[in-house]
């Protein structure tokens, strides 16, 4: 839950487990499409092949800009953009933060390698400290110069 940059994964009080949207996997495979898209009264939520939806949304952004919505933009549609593009992307009329969306979402595991290496560095430091403190001084053990 705390790792999702969009805060999508939620705790379900009823089941006592973490849940997220599955794109209605069962419905899609039976040709019904996701329930949210089916039920949306304004057809704001659309389901289909990604490249077709991106092309359609791109045209809509142009229209909106011509109408004076100068901040109109697609969020997550660009596959060269953040996270390699999202499978659920949005058409926004203002900057992402207006919608509580992160400007630059990142994958949470990006820190693991660097942080682990720095932890090892810290381990070496405290290890050296302990070696200095515990070393049996004043008693040559003979093996040192052999």
């Amino acid at each position, binding site marked *: 839950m705390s790792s999702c940059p969009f805060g999508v994964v939620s705790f379900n009080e009823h089941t006592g487990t973490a849940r997220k949207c599955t794109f209605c996997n069962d419905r899609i495979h039976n040709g019904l499409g996701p329930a949210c898209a089916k039920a949306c009264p304004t057809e704001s939520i659309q389901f289909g092949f990604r490249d077709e939806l991106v092309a359609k949304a791109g045209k809509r952004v142009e229209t909106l800009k011509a109408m004076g919505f100068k901040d109109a933009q697609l969020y997550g549609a660009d596959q060269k953009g953040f996270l390699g593009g999202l499978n659920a992307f949005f058409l926004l009329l203002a900057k992402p933060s207006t919608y509580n969306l992160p400007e630059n979402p990142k994958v949470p595991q990006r820190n693991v390698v660097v942080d682990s290496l720095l932890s090892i560095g810290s381990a070496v430091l405290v290890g050296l*400290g302990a070696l200095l*403190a515990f070393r049996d001084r004043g008693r040559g053990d003979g093996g040192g110069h052999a």
Partner: protein
Amino acid sequence: MLKTPDWGMMIVLYFFFGGIAGGAYFTAAIADNVGGPRSSRVALVGYLLSLPLVALCGLLLIADLGVPTRFLNMMRTLKFWDPMSLFGLFSFVSSVMCFGPFEHMARLRRRIGLIGMLFGFFLASYTGVLLSATAQPFWSEGRLMGALFLASGASTGMAAVSLILALTGGGSNPGLAKVKHADRYSMIIELVVLALFLALLGSAARPIVSGHFAPLFWGGLVALGLVVPLVLDFVGHGRKALGALAAVLVLVGGFILRYVIVMSIQS
């Protein structure tokens, strides 16, 4: 909107005791390997302390499940080679080898200690790396969360060992002086890492450096948990009561560190 993980006291305690278990084992392994006979009690206490604590860690995690019987789900894919189980195993073997019929195998016990020590380091630090692998800016932007937890695990582990030595040992104990000496290094390293951590975080450090949790962080951890014990140790000149007080303060500080870090971003 970012969501927080709903972690409570079980997790804070797990982070805290995991740090002490790893730190105590590592202290014991170093004392066992380079400390000579005068440090033998340090090794004994360190190994023996890590064992119940790592067991407690497992119990805390099971209790935190909310539905503790879900722990049984994990038994379907029984893995004894995960670092925590392995550390428990090393802790058990090292503890047993301090006694009776195994005493003449001290050389083997020392070797085992050197390997088990690595798992002790892992148990003490991975919890910090775990926090940094989230989307929470305060947890993930500092780069030194794991390093900080490790230094704190070392300082609290050494404080716990020194406290037990001070409370149980009569007369002069050269091992105790060495643990206190090592603990001073750990505390200094922890202070430096903490300062770098806050500097790297910048404004993302707000949850602990200002606001509701700030008094606990500055007063409880930085002042009472690190600076005061260091001063006590330097001016105390080996006086036992002051040393024991310093160790208690370090332990309280180690708990406060985990507490403010886990709780400050969850309202």
